[in-house]
């Protein structure tokens, strides 16, 4: 079973939102097509998004996927 509390995929969405005119979680959620709570869970590294959502987020910020998400092996 996946341990949701300690996911190895980290991200810098919070930082990217800040540099994108302080985009809110709600605005990002609407652009991606998920709920604000899902964006919040991704930001806190408590939920790992699917590749589709990860690519969408990276595309919105004009970054490559590995610049937004980093896998940190335990």
């Amino acid at each position: 079973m996946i341990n949701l509390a300690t996911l190895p995929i980290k991200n810098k969405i919070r930082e990217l939102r800040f540099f994108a005119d302080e985009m809110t979680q709600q605005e990002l959620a609407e652009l991606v097509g998920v709920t604000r709570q899902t964006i919040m869970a991704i930001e806190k590294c408590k939920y790992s998004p699917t590749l589709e959502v990860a690519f969408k987020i990276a595309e919105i910020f004009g970054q490559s996927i590995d610049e937004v998400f980093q896998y940190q092996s335990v």
Partner: protein
Amino acid sequence: MNMSFREKSIWISLISTLLIFGDYFLNVIALANLSEAVAKTTALELSIRAFVLIIIVEIIFQTVLALNNHKAANLGADERDKLFEYKGNNFGYTVLVIGVLLTLGRMVSLEISPEFIEQFKVLNIPFLTAHILLFSFILSEVVRFSAQLYYYRRCD
């Protein structure tokens, strides 16, 4: 507490199921003390009342929730909601299968030795097999909702 539309909807389903069917099963247990004819009529009345009540309560509360969160209601379930739904379904299905197997075991036992029921007069409730199956179903629903809420809370 920061809850999504889907999580609020599951809370409504869980609480209404627990209250309505909790009351229903408590009343069903009390039927064991009544005469057979009265118990049968009462059991049917209780079942109809519980099913009508759950439908009305769900419609009212889910509609109010959707009206207050129409944007989220239109969005539907996102990938995280679907993942938690899938995990919840797995737990609920397991409980349901166990309930069905126990019911089958009971039915086979009674076919092999009908005197078995005489030793358990306290369980002399009308439509007992149907009630055990219904209990399994309701329990599986409660487990399904609870598992989903557990994942939402853990992931919040």
